[in-house]
Structures are given as structure tokens and as C-alpha cells.
């Protein structure tokens, strides 16, 4: 066993025996997300590097502490990329990217982190080094533990390696802009979503709908002709989508609570005080609002979705929407199955996990 891994196994077993908590941390870029981390830091960055990458297999296996920038640079050289466009928010690592489960502007078009995760190697709360999934596209041997771990915010296990599906970068990309209000934008986005158009991202804010088209040159050109709108210069477009992904767009500036509402794409504009931005064809709505958390959650639930207190605000009210029905009990038992001594990510997701 690798010295770093065996060191981690030892630390985890010791923490479990003592009843102490560990904060699994990569670049620390998403420390703001979820409840405040607890416990002594276990830094994953000493376990870095690409384990296997064969472009023709469309799979890369990487150690969890590898900087995301480094991974993306290697993929870029071969004309490939992480299609779910994970945000960085700083010096992000591959492990942190999977554990946080956050995807960028391309989410609605191609899928999220979990859709590209093929396998993981992890250490559970007992200190057992385990492998789940693999490096092939299709695999139904055993329960899908890999996808379960995506977005679990490090509350189930310490990731040591992840295998991700990669895709070729689109041949052509064009960004269009339209002037329209929120209601019209939601209507158009859902209408376009039902047609074979190469829409790869959308962003609406303050009366402007921006749309990115990606794919074969011919498909993008045909869609530009059909949709009209104002075409953005390539530099401007690249900067805009980066700003949206990294939340550096002017909408995201300020200190007020930032809510993320995940809703069915065709849900009506949310009737809540505050400023709104829309992504993912209507399925992700950002809301800057000081409004009462309980009511924001009720509105999201009534629309068929949920609300996350993404940044700022008072986390005492809970960052994530409370779990309904038997789900809370299943979550507690799953946590107990992986991490009976609650070594990992104590309280980060929900107080009792």
C-alpha cells in the first residue's frame, strides 16, 4: 500500500477509536459550501497525479488531490474535457470536485458530476480501502457507490482516486444574446429544449438571455440562422461563461444570502423578493434575497424542487432542504454503514450525519 494511503488509514482508524472528527480538505475552495467544517484537517493534496489516461477510452483516473487545473490541462492537450464544467472557486482538486458534486453551465445539456463518474477508490470510516465501479462506461456489478459518493460533501468516505468519463471538446461554439424578460426567457428555453438544437448553456439575468450553442460546425451554424439574436465575440463569450461558472459575474457580487433553487425547468418565475439569475434552461435559479428561509424553501418545494443556502446568510436555519419521509432515516443508516464513528464531514450536510 502507498505510504500516503497507509498513513491516512492509520489516521482514520485512530480518529474513529478516539471519537474525533476529520475535515477532508483538498484546495479548500468550497469550504464555504455546507455547514462549517469540523475536525482536524486531512489534506488530500499530498496524493496527486494522473494514474491512467487513455484518450481513446474516454476515461481518466486521477488521484483525489490532483489540482483540477492540472487535470484539465492534460485533457485539453488531447482535445478532451470534463463536460460537466466543474466550477473551481479557487485551487480546486479532483476529489473535492466529486465530493462537492457541483457542475457548471453545461449541466442541463450533458449531465452532472455523477453522470461522468465511473468509479472511485475510497477509505471508509473503518479505515478499509475499497474500490467501486471501474474504468468502463457500463458497469452494473454491485450497488453504484461511486455515484452515491458524488455530492456527499465528504460525509461518507475519503476519496483517494476517481475515474471520470471525458468527452471530446465540441468542434464549434457560438454564443447568442437576446433581450427578453424572465417569463419569456423561461418559455423560450423550454421550447428550445424540446427541439433538436445544440444548446449547451443558458444564462438569464436582468432582461438579457445568453445562449451557448456547441457541436458540429454545421449544426451550430444552422441553429444560429434559425434562432437569430445578437452574436457575441468569441473572447467576450468565453469570459462570460467563465464568469458564470466561477460566480464572478456581476450578479454574484455582494454579501447578501445567495440561494440556489433547483426546480423543474418549466417552473414559473419564483414569486419571492430579491434578484434572480437563471441557468440550466430554467432548472437552476439563483436568488439574492434576505427573505425568510422557511418561505423560500416552501416556494421551492411547491414548485417541485428544493433550495440551498449556497453562500452567506445564517446557516443556523440549515443549508440544505430538510429530507422528506423515510429519506432522513435512510440517510442516517447509510452514514452509519460507511462511517459509524462519524469521523468524516461531521454536520457538514445535515446536523445528524
Amino acid at each position, binding site marked *: *500500500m502507498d505510504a500516503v494511503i497507509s498513513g491516512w488509514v492509520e489516521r482514520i482508524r485512530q480518529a474513529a477509536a478516539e471519537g474525533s472528527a476529520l475535515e477532508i480538505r483538498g484546495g479548500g475552495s468550497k469550504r464555504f459550501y455546507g455547514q462549517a467544517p469540523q475536525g482536524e484537517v486531512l489534506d488530500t493534496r499530498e496524493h496527486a497525479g494522473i494514474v491512467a489516461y*487513455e484518450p*481513446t*477510452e474516454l476515461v481518466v483516473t486521477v488521484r483525489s488531490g490532483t489540482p483540477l487545473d492540472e487535470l484539465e490541462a492534460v485533457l485539453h492537450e488531447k482535445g478532451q474535457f470534463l463536460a460537466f464544467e466543474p466550477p473551481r472557486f479557487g485551487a480546486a482538486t479532483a476529489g473535492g470536485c466529486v465530493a462537492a*458534486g457541483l457542475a457548471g453551465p453545461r*449541466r442541463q445539456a450533458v449531465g452532472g458530476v*455523477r453522470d461522468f463518474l465511473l468509479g472511485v477508490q475510497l477509505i*471508509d470510516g473503518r479505515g*478499509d480501502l*475499497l*474500490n*467501486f465501479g*471501474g*474504468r*468502463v*462506461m*457500463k458497469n*452494473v*456489478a*454491485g*450497488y*453504484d*457507490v461511486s*455515484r*452515491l459518493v*458524488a*455530492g*456527499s460533501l465528504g460525509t461518507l468516505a475519503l476519496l483517494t482516486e476517481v475515474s471520470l468519463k471525458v*468527452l*471530446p471538446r465540441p468542434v464549434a461554439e457560438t454564443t447568442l444574446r437576446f433581450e427578453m424578460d424572465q417569463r419569456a426567457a423561461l418559455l423560450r428555453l*423550454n*421550447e428550445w*429544449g*424540446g427541439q*433538436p438544437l445544440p444548446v449547451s448553456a443558458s444564462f438569464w439575468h436582468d432582461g438579457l438571455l445568453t445562449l451557448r450553442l456547441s*457541436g*458540429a*460546425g*454545421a*449544426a451550430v*451554424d*444552422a441553429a444560429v440562422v434559425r434562432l437569430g439574436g445578437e452574436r457575441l465575440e468569441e473572447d467576450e463569450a468565453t469570459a462570460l461563461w467563465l464568469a458564470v461558472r466561477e460566480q464572478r459575474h456581476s450578479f454574484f457580487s455582494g454579501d447578501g444570502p445567495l440561494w440556489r433553487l*433547483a426546480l*423543474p*425547468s*418549466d417552473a414559473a418565475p419564483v414569486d419571492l423578493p430579491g434578484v434572480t439569475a437563471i441557468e*440550466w434552461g430554467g*432548472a437552476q435559479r439563483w436568488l439574492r434575497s434576505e427573505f425568510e428561509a422557511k418561505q423560500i424553501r416552501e416556494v421551492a418545494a411547491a414548485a*417541485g*424542487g*428544493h433550495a440551498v443556502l449556497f453562500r452567506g446568510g445564517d446557516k443556523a436555519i440549515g443549508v440544505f432542504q*430538510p429530507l422528506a*419521509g*423515510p*429519506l432522513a432515516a*435512510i440517510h442516517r*443508516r*447509510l452514514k452509519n*454503514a460507511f462511517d459509524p464513528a462519524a469521523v468524516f464531514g461531521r454536520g457538514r450536510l*445535515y446536523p445528524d450525519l
Partner: protein
Amino acid sequence: MSEVVETMEPGANEIDFSRVDRARLIEALARVLPPGCLLYDQEDLRPYECDGLSAYRQMPMVVALPETEAQAAAVLGVCSEQGVPVVARGAGTGLSGGALPHAHGVLLSLARFKKIVRMDPVARLAIVQPGVRNLAISEAAARHGLYYAPDPSSQIACTIGGNVAENSGGVHCLKYGLTVHNVLRVRGLTIDGEVVEFGSHALDAPGYDLLALMHGSEGMLAVITEVTVKLTPKPQLAQCVMASFDDVVTAGNAVAAVIAAGIIPAGLEMMDQPATAAVEQFVHAGYNLEAAAILLCESDGTPEEVSEEVGRIRAVLEESGASEIRVSRDEAERLKFWAGRKAAFPAAGRLSADYYCMDGTIPRKRLGEMLEAIQGMEKKYGLRCINVFHAGDGNMHPLILFDANVPGELDRAEAFGADILELSVSLGGTITGEHGVGVEKINQMCSQFSAAERTAFFRIKAAFDPDGLLNPGKAIPTLNRCAEYGKLHVHDGQLPHADLERF
């Protein structure tokens, strides 16, 4: 230290259900189900004794056919209270024996859950009951210019509940994903009969991704009562390129070359010569019978897009040494190209009294190696094997031909299959890409996973089903079973569970 504890964990031994009281069970179920929804006479049970894997047969104790979610919940309540195993079943087309009944259990058929609850063309989703057939969803969505993308070859008959339970794939999943990528929400019942929803109509849900965990869980975590699937806009046009190759390794390399060129075709399938010969005599697709392997490579999208992509595919295949290339000129010809691939199973049935279909998935670059090894196994076991596969994602379906009436042939076919699965694991792949483990591949799970990994699976199951009542004995082998099977997963050079008693 931990080894002693491990044997006390869930999953050390099979649970003994022989003390289930049949009369008491029937009496309790009759109270919660309307007349005609409960079967227990031997002749009524017969149709349920196997699924698509007919080599394994087992009569259930009773069959429950609820018509509503409340009735299904009541059946689970009875089973939970009396400690009775429950095996959920959709259309029974599964190929791994996942719906094989339990001798002391209830076979819970969802066959009467066949309503399309809501078709929503604006949100591009359909809410359907689990007994709705895969193809029926696409047929109902067609008038909105939409379809449900995953298309397992049994799509005429297989149901969406079973598709979720097995995480089914199909010919087009290289580009459009598996079932897990195309389902938004699963509504189900816990073993206690409580309603639970995994996922949502948004793109994510709070907490752990239990929606993903349900996919491929083979009815072992919850019983599905409703599924919301994503609908995809129908491409305007599809065109198929058919390429012939003089040897299989060159064909395998051509597959890699297509991917390396940055093309993700809508479908990328390969057939070897024996498979081509078998299907050609009854579909007359015009396959090149001289070719050692045939590749079918499909492009879909707008007419402009398809024409551009077909040009690129053609160039790559020519450069990769294709001996002949044909491009479908119209929809009729495209369907003809595919007819043979889709008829591979029935063609195998014409060649041979019985066939056994494998499902290993391996890294694409190892295809040539695997095919050579299979040729060696044909000699070793004295049985023929024809190969069709989803080449684009390395998912192979070798069809082993045998005659169950010839003494010893079934055993040889099973040993042949086991060899292929073991090799899939050692080539860096998996024993099952899309058919599931069921009862069929349960022994090979011992090779693919360590004892600690299998124990983790049992712990996950226990988080949903603490008494182990949902589909017991499937998918995950007990520690003792693996000890008996003998082919152990050797991890870090140490023999796992050396402490266990061997029977």
C-alpha cells in the same frame, strides 16, 4: 481484529426463510388484495418460475399482483411483519435471473402498473408506472417530437421498472447514456410499505444521490411504483455507416480511431464473422460474409450535422483499413443494416437449441485480446460462440451456443461463460455491463470485489432493508458463498476471510 466482527455483519451467511408459514401468509395477503390479485395454486404459479434466464427455475410460494400503490404497500407490510422474502418482477425479460422467485417468498408482479400517468412535452418528461414498456414511452412521446433514449434490445417487451432495477443500456447509450442518465425521479415503497421518492423533477435533490443508487440495485433496496423519465428531442435524421474488416483486431482499432477523432457516434456496434453469417441467412441485410468483422456506426442530428459527421466517420474508417464501406442511402436501408444486429439473439436461437448470453464490459483496447481468448475457449469447451457487441463502450455479448438436452453441455456453457467473466475482470473490466448480476453471475462477484467491498454492499442493503427481505440471495454473494466458490479476490496478496469456516 476486524475479521471476527465481519462474520457478524450482514451478509456473512444466507438468511434461512424455511419457517415462513404459507397458510398464514396467504390469509394475510387475501385480506389486503382484491380477488384475482393473489395466486398460489401450482398451475397459476408456473408462468412465474423463471425470467429471461430460463436455465434457473424456482416456483414462488405465492404471486401477488397488486393494482394500486396502496395494495403493493399493504403486501410489503404483510411480508415485513411476517418476515417473508419479496421478489419484484416487471416483464420478466431480465437475462441474469434477477426476478427468479424465492421458494419461501412472495413474487410481487408489477405487471398491472402499466399506465402512462402524465406526458409533459414542455418539461420534456413522462411520469409512468413501472410496468410500462420501454418502447411504449417513445411511442407515446413521438407526436411531440420526443422519445425516451435508452433502447435495450428487448425494448418491445421490457418495462421501465426493470430498466431502472438493472440500469439497462442499449445500442445508443454511448451518446445518450444509460437508464441512470435518463431518469429524474423514482417513487417507490420501502420494505415497510412506506412511500419514498428518490430524485425530483429538478436536476438534483437534497442529500445523497439515492436515485443513482436505485439504478442497478436489482430490486434489493425498494420496490418501484412510479418513474419519471427524461424525454429527448428526436434527431431529424440518422444515417448508418457499415464497414467491413479483414480481421477483428483492425476493426477494434478502428473503433478507437473513431473516438480518437473526437466523434461520439449515436451507435457503434461490432459483429464477428460467425454472428454475421448467422443473421444474414435470415435477415438478408447484405452483410459482407467474407469480412472477419463488421462495424455499424451511426450518426444522428440535423441533416447538415449528419452529413458532416458521416464524412468524418468514413474518412477515419478508410484510414483504419476498412475493406468495404457502405453508407445507408435512406431510412429503409439504415433499418436493414440494423436489422441483423438486432436479430442476433433470435439468429443464435436458429443456429442452436440454446444459447447463453454474456455481458462483460472491458476497456475497448482489449477487445482483440478477448476475442482471441474466446476462440481458445471454444476449443476448450467444444462449444461455438458468436460475438456481437456494443463496441463503442466495450460491452460484449458473446452468445455461447449449446444444447441443454445433450448431457454436460449446459455445464460446459456455464463454465465457458464463467471463464469469459473472469477474464473481463482481469482485463480491467466488469462482469456485467447492463444485464445485472442476479443469480447468474453471483459467483463472479467474488472475483470482482473483495470481502470488505461485499460487506459494504450488504451494509448499504441493510440501510434500506434491515431484515434482508427484498430479493434475498441475489446480486451480492455472502462471505460463505465466496469461500465455497473458491476463486477468491486476492487483495494485496492476502487471502480474504481466511478465518471463515468452509463447508
